[in-house]
């Protein structure tokens, strides 16, 4: 199953449960409170997922390591390499 199908499957599953409860499609005579809670649920889910995404990405950007040490080490090794290669007879 492709990821696309997985997503479609998941979304339609959640969507049908939501519709069943919100509109009481099976005539289960659910209490009104159930319907009131279920009805705006998709919006809540979307908003909280949006917030979660922003927070996660923001946190990961803020904690993205800057490898200054690695850059410095590389610069030194480049110098060393150039000298050694020249000694070995490389013409650049």
């Amino acid at each position, binding site marked *: 199953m*492709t990821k696309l199908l997985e997503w479609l499957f998941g979304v339609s599953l959640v969507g049908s449960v939501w519709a069943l409860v919100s509109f009481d499609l099976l005539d289960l005579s659910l209490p009104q409170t159930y319907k009131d809670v279920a009805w705006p649920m998709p919006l809540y889910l979307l908003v909280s997922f949006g917030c979660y995404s922003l927070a996660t990405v923001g946190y990961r950007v803020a904690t993205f390591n800057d490898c200054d040490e690695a850059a410095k080490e590389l610069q030194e090794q480049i110098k060393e390499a150039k000298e050694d*290669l020249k000694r070995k007879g490389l013409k650049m």
Partner: protein
Amino acid sequence: MASRKTSHSKQDKSDKYSILLPTYNERENLPLIVWLLVKYFGESGYNYEIIVIDDGSPDGTLEVAEQLQKIYGEDKILLRPRAKKLGLGTAYIHGMKHATGNFIIIMDADLSHHPKFIPEFIEKQKEGNYDLVSGTRYKGNGGVYGWDLRRKVISRGANFLTQVLLRPGASDLTGSFRLYKKEVLESLVERCVSKGYVFQMEMIVRARQLNYTVGEVPISFVDRVYGESKLGGNEIVSFVKGLITLFATT
């Protein structure tokens, strides 16, 4: 093979690592990356060969590669040039055909992938007998150098989106510093259809699909010092296209 844990340097004489270095206008970088590879392989004692796949670089990369071959020997440096620029994906396939190692390491020749991590890749591979080991900028001590805020936001955002949509089971999909078992790389390459930069993404997504095991090693990614970027420009467009394609087909 009895004392697996005692020494990393002399064990498994039969293991050989073929490093594929695709180059296009890397005259300045190639000698440095080769020097570093020789240094770290020399220190760790693993058996290796370096395969340079130059695509007719106008800056004379091939000529430099020939000099390096004289210095380090024809058994260590193999030249498998092609007449013209045919792209990165096919460069790997071309190089792989000539590889004699049972493991293949793929890395950029522009010094953004540091050979010091290779012994860690190898140890990681042995630790879990992984089918492939991928370098990651997004975990542990991994990171980048020379990136501004904008680039970090794009990178992290794109990575998050990919994780959500594809759940690939690997944290760095677009990085191309990886170690593969040779037969694993061969079977992956056969199945991968995308070109260029999306190729890296497809490789690891398909690896998961085929139930190959993936190990990860944090790496520091230092932006190229010499030479020009060959991809750039519409990287975002090709990323989005690739993501959608993989989303719909894997």
